[in-house]
């Protein structure tokens, strides 16, 4: 009997991990649709290709080396992870199956990489992007992930990042920022006189669908990060996480709506979508400690931040077609820094420290990799290819190829 019950707990926790993982895997489709909706149709097939393949590469690289680097046989509190391949062996008395743990972790890597594809859309070479994907998902992410979730020095330093506002989202944004700096803006985005020329995305229903998918998948992202559900305390915790996650997204959307209405007199749909995502990213650093009301406030603040952040990046001529830097970077940072407000176990100092370490490392490591790719094979398509659209050049097919006059 005793064993049966223990195994039953093991089974439930494993099942909970797997279902959470499926929801996070689904976020890959969310990013694909969001980005496909926010680029011009001449670059749509290419961004779809990037999103499918980055997910595939992330899953393969994390299986081959990444998971091992991040989680297996590492020393507690260290800087350097042990090196090795594959996923190790099931530990005695583990709470859930090793494979389910891998599955839940691997989909996070893909999320981090999906953030990059949006920011560099419409101008980065397909193959440069894919090569970078190999490095980020196989090495850079696992390394910095080890520092906190794998038991490395950041976890010892008291840095607290429940489901990855920093480790996943801000890290993805850091890699994206490095790329955007080397890459430059899309042709025609900024006038010589400093003016901003908006380049509207081609398909709002896709962008909205993508956002809904992400919102849905986030319940797995944050809900699964409690890691256990099979007793009352953990189950209640997961329940609260769902509630808070949803609440922060909701108020993020509402806040972005209100700001855009006050500033421009209109309901700016893509800002609202970004507002919901901003709320989600911000609450991800700690969806468990805040009360639902506090979660609402965190989401709302993130929704305001994201609007101003997007406008500011544009003023700085940092061209980010989908707002990834603002949503995942700026709001990820905000999420980290707001943790101590509701979580006594975290301090502003340790949060700042962790954020600086993660951002600094991922940004510099990425910059290096991007730079090497740039000087060897190049990272940007030619102006002519950019004008004609990436689809024809990289994929040889258009997203909507029917004869349109």
């Amino acid at each position: 009997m005793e064993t049966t019950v223990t195994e039953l707990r093991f089974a439930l926790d494993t099942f909970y991990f797997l279902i959470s993982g499926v929801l996070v895997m689904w976020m890959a489709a969310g990013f694909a649709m969001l980005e496909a909706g926010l680029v011009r149709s001449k670059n749509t097939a290419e961004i779809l290709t990037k999103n499918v393949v980055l997910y595939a590469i992330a899953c393969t690289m994390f299986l081959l080396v990444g998971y091992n680097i991040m989680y297996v046989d590492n020393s507690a509190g260290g800087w350097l992870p042990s090196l090795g391949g594959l996923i190790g062996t099931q530990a005695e008395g583990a709470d859930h199956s090793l494979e389910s743990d891998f599955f839940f972790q691997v989909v996070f890597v893909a999320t981090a990489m999906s953030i990059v594809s949006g920011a560099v859309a419409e101008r980065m070479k397909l193959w440069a992007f894919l090569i970078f994907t190999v490095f980020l998902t196989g090495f850079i992410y696992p390394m910095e992930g080890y520092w906190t979730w794998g038991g490395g020095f950041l976890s010892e330093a008291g840095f607290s990042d429940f489901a990855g506002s920093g480790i996943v989202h801000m890290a993805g944004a850091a890699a994206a920022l490095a790329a955007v700096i080397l890459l430059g803006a899309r042709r025609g985005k900024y006038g010589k006189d400093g003016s901003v020329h908006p380049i509207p995305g081609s398909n709002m229903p896709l962008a909205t669908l993508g956002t809904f998918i992400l919102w849905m998948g986030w319940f797995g992202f944050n809900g699964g990060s409690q890691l256990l559900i099979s007793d009352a305390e953990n189950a209640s915790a997961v329940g609260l996480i769902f509630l808070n996650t949803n609440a922060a997204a909701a108020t993020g959307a509402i806040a972005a709506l209100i700001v855009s209405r006050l500033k421009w007199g209109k309901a700016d749909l893509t800002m609202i979508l970004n507002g919901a995502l901003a709320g989600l990213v911000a609450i991800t650093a700690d969806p468990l400690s805040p009360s639902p009301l506090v979660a609402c406030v965190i989401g709302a603040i993130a929704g305001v931040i994201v609007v101003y952040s997007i406008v500011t990046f544009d003023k700085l001529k940092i061209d980010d077609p989908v707002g990834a830097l603002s949503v995942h970077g700026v709001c990820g940072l905000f999420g980290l820094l707001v943790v101590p407000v509701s979580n006594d176990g975290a301090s502003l100092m340790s949060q700042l420290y962790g954020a600086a370490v993660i951002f600094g490392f991922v940004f510099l490591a990425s910059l290096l990799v991007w730079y090497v790719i740039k000087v060897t094979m190049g990272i940007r398509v030619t102006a002519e290819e950019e004008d004609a659209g990436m689809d024809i050049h990289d994929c040889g097919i258009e997203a909507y190829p029917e004869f349109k006059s």
Partner: protein
Amino acid sequence: MKMLTAIIKPFKLDEVREAVMSIGIAGVTVSEVKGFGRQKGHTELYRGAEYQVDFLPKVKLEIAVKAEDVERLVEAITTAANTGKVGDGKIFIQPLEQVVRIRTGELDSEAL
């Protein structure tokens, strides 16, 4: 023969088509165009940046007719397409030297 080209507001298409048919014209070719003229465009907003959209959706009708029908046709179109507001559109009349019906090879007035 003449080739009439009319630029009208999109939602007037059905009325204009009926008006054209009612005076016995049997064929029209229609396309969607964007027009720029005295009628003001509007401001759009995308991710916090506003921009001016000057080109407004219009519909273009091309109608080949015998010279003697031109007047009635212009009359019919102007009446049907008129809303009295700026942007109602224009009619252009150009010479048309020959018409061929592809199916039969018939020419000119037989081809219309």
